[in-house]
């Protein structure tokens, strides 16, 4: 009896600790969002609810341009990285071959190299080949680090896939291409979608690499936010940050839903 009660007490303690942790995890974000609706010009002094900073931000042509640039970069990088990652995953999951391990290692390399190193290395490379800095250079850099993020869910989906499904297709008179089109691809689609969403999130949020390889006029949203932060706290930053935060959260919820669906569909039995 004594043992039981002491057990219950310590679980409560753990619960308090964990709940405090979740407050810690979300408090700053909550503060940011709340203050983005603050009417007062001085960010930390609350006066009244207002959406004026959102209106102001959206009427700011620089912010508009930054958002468009971000979407352009994330859009192109996502499409290219997802395509490349899908192709690579199909090859790497089909059978083992010489160079299998090294190929896997190269694809996951961008996950291991610190962003600052990628950033300055890419900058040096573009300088060495005299490639002009601008949106194109950002897009190229983004494709590189988006590939492993797109690759992971696609690869996971493929390895969770029953290999005999492809054999069943071939057995039922479908040639290689028909098997891909009627069996593999439809089953892979949720994985590809998940990979694309991850790529998009990673690209839209990227800051350091964009900072180093962006030329004049190629400001993305995080770069713009950074330049604003350097000038000090302002309600406008809160508004723009909240928008960017919401984009990421929407995307991650979409990813979560897609991958949940993934799990359900893979397991037939």
């Amino acid at each position: 009896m004594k043992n039981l009660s002491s057990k219950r007490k310590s679980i409560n303690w753990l619960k308090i600790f964990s709940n405090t942790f979740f407050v810690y995890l979300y408090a700053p974000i909550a503060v940011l969002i709340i203050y983005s609706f603050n009417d007062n010009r001085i960010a930390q002094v609350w006066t009244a609810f207002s959406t004026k900073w959102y209106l102001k931000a959206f009427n700011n042509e620089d912010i508009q341009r930054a958002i468009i640039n971000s979407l352009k970069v994330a859009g192109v990088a996502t499409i290219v990285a997802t395509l490349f990652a899908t192709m690579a995953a199909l090859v790497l999951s089909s059978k083992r071959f010489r160079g299998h391990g090294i190929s896997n290692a190269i694809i996951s390399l961008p996950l291991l190299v610190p962003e600052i190193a990628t950033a300055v290395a890419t900058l040096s490379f573009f300088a060495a080949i005299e490639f002009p800095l601008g949106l194109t250079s950002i897009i190229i850099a983004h494709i590189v680090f988006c590939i492993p993020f797109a690759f992971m869910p696609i690869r996971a989906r493929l390895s969770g896939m029953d290999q005999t499904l492809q054999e069943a297709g071939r057995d039922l008179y479908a040639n290689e291409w028909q098997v891909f089109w009627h069996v593999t691809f439809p089953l892979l689609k949720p994985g590809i979608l998940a990979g694309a969403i991850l790529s998009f999130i990673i690209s839209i949020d990227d800051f350091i690499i964009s900072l180093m390889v962006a030329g004049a006029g190629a400001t993305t949203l995080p770069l713009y936010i950074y330049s604003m932060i350097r000038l000090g706290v302002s309600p406008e930053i809160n508004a723009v940050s909240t928008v960017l935060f919401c984009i990421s959260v929407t995307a991650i919820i979409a990813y979560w839903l897609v991958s949940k669906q993934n799990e359900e569909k893979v397991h037939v039995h």
Partner: protein
Amino acid sequence: MNDINAISVKNVEKIYGGGKQAVTALKDIHLEIRDREFFTLLGPSGCGKTTLLRLIAGFEQPNQGEILLFGDHLEGLEPYQRPVNTVFQSYSLFPHMTIAENISFGLKMQGKMQKEISSTVAEMLELVKMAEYGERMPNQLSGGQQQRIALARALAPRPKVLLLDEPLSALDLKLRQAMRHELKRLQRDTGITFVFVTHDQEEAMSMSDRIAVMSQGSIQQLDAPETIYERPCNEFVANFIGDVNLIDASVSEFQPGKLVCQWAGSQVVAANTATTADLSSENRVRLAVRPEKLRLVTKDQGQTNAQVTESMYMGTDRYITVTCDHGENLEVRVQNSDVSGEVIQEGDTVGVFIPELSAVALTDQQSGLS
């Protein structure tokens, strides 16, 4: 038609890997499967039975030898070019297609007309008694139902031979027993040759016209189920199918189909399918006797006397273990059909009697297969 074999496997060898890691999965396989036959490849896991099935289906290529389908060479033909279909162990129904789409897949790939496809799908659903399930998704079906759909899907393109890779292994016992009848009926109704792979001897015995017992990449015996059980050719087959007592005896006389042996100082007449050359020079022979063929008789009435060491009541039978006077242990099975109430007790002394031709002489004591 009947004089051409559905499948002829000639001299087939399959080796996985290369160099030092090479594993021989099949060695020098010869096999003829007749048209409209329910043929079973039976053996423990790793014996090569599934490999042989995959070679026929075309998922893998033999390193040597050839496989003929109704006299036609299959070499170089992709799985989708071979008029054989497979029922997979895990069913492998396409999870993103409805049941009807699953069944029509093969027909669509063959380029059949839509009208023909719909009528065949309906016919197949009828055949496996799942007519109302066409629009369901595979994950909405139970294991047994998925099994039927897998059968329907493989039968829909009317293959010349249907290959079944342990299709019942994922089902529970009751369902498995029901599906045996179902498979037998399907085979009769469609008239298609079935090649069935299993490790379950009961499944093999109950359904097959003929069984090939495989072990370590080669065929140990190929015969009708009765022959396999009654006249196993070697220790492996005798052990793998049913329970068996193996006893050592010495040969005293050869007769056509018979072997007169000496065992425990008495005479045993065993069935013999081998020639003298197959038997060892010292005239030693190993005999296989099924537990239900052994008789327990009154003391001194059998070939030897023995003491009952264990008596286990199993419902229809009683499993009895006896220790012979010369030390050998034997398993005996006695049917509980006797109503007199006389029961053999542990500690009783009884006579052991091996009736004529109930023991079989095995030919492979030296082959090391056991």
